[in-house]
């Protein structure tokens, strides 16, 4: 990554890019499928847990100022362990990016470009992302800073303009399919907060590292609010049977917006905003992949890697034969990947590193 640092607001927007990209696709649908009428309650509950986990991550990272998760893993198990952990995160970023890119491109193909080969739609994203990544890291973070607030406002507008279609009875029964389903099985919905993985890589990039706590809590809070608004919009408009069959349910919600007789069917306007946000997500995640690769291989010049990673994401996104396969990957495998890497692996590494440091400091005190 570039030596230039980013500010607090830019860091928050970087974390929000993941949730924005994921929410456009099937994340709200998955939550509604599993939780039914208890979706909002479940999201509030999961958000509280993620806030606690986020605070834990902040406290654990605080003991390693200026280091990211890859550097911390080197402290735990040397260079080999660092390379293994770096590779895991890099593969996670690449797979997430390619899978979401495929699904988003497929949804665009279904809606607007049925005669276009999926390769061209995917390439239409990859080429500008490769170009944008050649610019300084600050360009990406500033672009996120401009685009993400627009997306956040868009979801509020979507919620507000659809209020006359809302049927609040769909919130009941409030516990959905039961307390166990809502509060225990529903814990898997912490995968919605996949943006938390960026927290592990932020410390060396921050202009004001002391604001890490603020970044963590605000980003999780905004993510939760965004998710709740998205899910609430779908919950109150559609019945579960319709919602669970939709490709991009949030897009379908935009088709119900009517502002008088003149402004109707404004879904394409939202599409501009979501495509921008998705391009920002791709740019950010591919940048992090390149920087992790650069760190584990000690490459001097990372610019040639940008195109290679772009091609890798393009290639991986074209691996699934059809939309059904890529969507099933997003719905079944991806949430578990997020929980495994972003939560278990990340927090596990930080806990081990902290314990090791505590043990070493005790030894130093004795001797």
């Amino acid at each position, binding site marked *: 990554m570039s030596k230039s640092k980013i500010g607090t607001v830019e860091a928050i927007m970087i974390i929000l890019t993941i949730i924005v990209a994921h929410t456009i696709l099937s994340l709200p649908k998955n939550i509604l499928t599993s939780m039914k009428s208890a979706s909002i309650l479940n999201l509030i509950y999961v958000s509280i847990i993620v806030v606690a986990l986020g605070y834990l991550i902040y406290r654990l990272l605080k003991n390693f100022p200026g280091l990211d998760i890859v550097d911390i893993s080197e402290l735990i198990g040397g260079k080999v362990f660092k390379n293994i952990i770096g590779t895991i995160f890099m593969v996670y970023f690449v797979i997430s990016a390619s899978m979401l890119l495929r699904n988003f491109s497929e949804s665009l193909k279904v809606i607007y470009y049925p005669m276009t080969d999926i390769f061209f739609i995917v390439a239409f994203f990859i080429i500008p992302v490769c170009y944008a990544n050649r610019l300084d890291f600050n360009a990406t973070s500033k672009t996120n800073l401009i685009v993400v607030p627009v997306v956040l406002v868009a979801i509020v507008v979507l919620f507000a303009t659809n209020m006359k279609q809302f049927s609040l009875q769909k919130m009941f029964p409030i516990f959905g399919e039961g307390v166990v389903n809502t509060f225990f099985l529903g814990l898997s919905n912490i995968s919605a907060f996949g943006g938390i993985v960026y927290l592990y890589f932020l410390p060396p990039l921050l202009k004001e590292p002391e604001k890490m706590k603020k970044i963590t809590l605000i980003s999780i809070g905004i993510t939760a609010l965004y998710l709740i608004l998205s899910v609430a919009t779908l919950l109150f408009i559609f019945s579960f049977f319709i919602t669970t069959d939709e490709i991009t349910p949030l897009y379908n919600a935009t088709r119900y917006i009517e502002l008088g007789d003149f402004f109707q*069917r404004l879904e394409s306007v939202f599409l*501009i905003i979501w495509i921008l946000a998705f391009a920002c997500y791709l740019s950010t995640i591919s940048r992090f992949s390149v920087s992790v690769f650069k760190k584990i291989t000690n490459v001097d010049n990372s610019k040639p890697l940008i195109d290679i990673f772009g091609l890798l994401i393009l290639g991986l996104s074209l691996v699934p034969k059809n939309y059904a396969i890529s969507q099933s990957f997003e719905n079944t495998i991806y949430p578990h990947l997020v929980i495994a890497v972003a939560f278990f692996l990340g927090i596990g590494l930080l806990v081990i590193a902290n314990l090791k440091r505590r043990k070493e400091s005790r030894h130093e005190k004795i001797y």
Partner: protein
Amino acid sequence: MFIDTLDQAFDIEVKGFKQRSIDTPNNEVVIKGPNEAFVENIRTNTSILRRIVNNENLIIENIEVGKITKTKCAVCYIQDFTNQDLINEVKYRLNNLDIDSLFSAGELEQFICDSNIFGIPQTMATERPDKAAKYLLKGRVIVIVNGTPYGIIMPSILIDFLSSSEDTNLKPNFSNFLRILRVISSFLTLLLPGLYIAVTSFHQEILPTSLMFSILGSRENVPFPIIVEILLMEFSFELIREAGLRVPSPIGPTIGIVGALVLGQAAVSAGIVSPILIIIVAITGIASFAIPDFTFGFHLRYFRFAFILLGFMAGFLGISIGLFIYISALCSIHSFGVPFTTPFAPVTDSKGNGYLLSPIWKREYRPPYMSTEKPKEQDSISMKWKFFKPFGK
């Protein structure tokens, strides 16, 4: 020349050159502001600036650029508070130009700008000495080139290109209204034709049914595909604009009227283009004239063709991807160390120096992104007549 206490006098020949007298600005017309413009002679320009600023801390340093022409460039700044690093950087760039000649401020701008990405300007040229003085007092550096009636303001950021020198002469309500209008006109200049082609080709559902029928009906007899139609009209408009610059002034406005009205009407009557497209092109052209800075307006006019092609190829997907690249490019630019998209990205407290103006009594600070040595330019209660009445009254 007689010198006191000397018993000799000096006979000195003082040669002068014929030069253009101070005139009104041609390209930056304001209603309420002064009507003086820079001229070609550097001494006249620096004297105007000195008269306006009227402070001994205004430093004007002369630097010669060009091995053959040795063109004089005056680097102007207020010593009291202008950031020393900025001054040093400007002088460094001017002193390290290994060129034979320099003829205009436009050439100098190209030599000293940080990057040439998408042709986005990073310095601003002004022919108004009052505008130059205002920017001097905000901590900028002005470079005046001998032989050009323009001063180059550096650094310049995005909001500067959408601001006019008229803005500070009006009440903030009016100037903010105009500033919002200019932002809308920038979007229209850049995106309107592209959006039109994207909507009519891919996203017809946005249009109300009656409007869609009207557009389709007007295009019924047009033999060309929409992309050919729109490129034809856009190029024609640019041709008319360029021709208007070259034609002698007595018939210049006539050509504009003939070209715009008669040819446009004739094209519609002949069924070559649709009437709605004439409106789109006309609105785009008028919007481009609303942008105060010529170079920035040119850049937007130039890039609208890219968005036309992207809109034709992929509809709103193409437009969004184009916007993504454009915003990334804007965010990557620095003008003499100041990020181009300040104060929006990165988010900084502009202290009343953002795009929308606060009331004049609240503009207490110089722009923080200039890192001036005296951040405050007026007292928190500047209108002392209003709040501090003399004793006994």
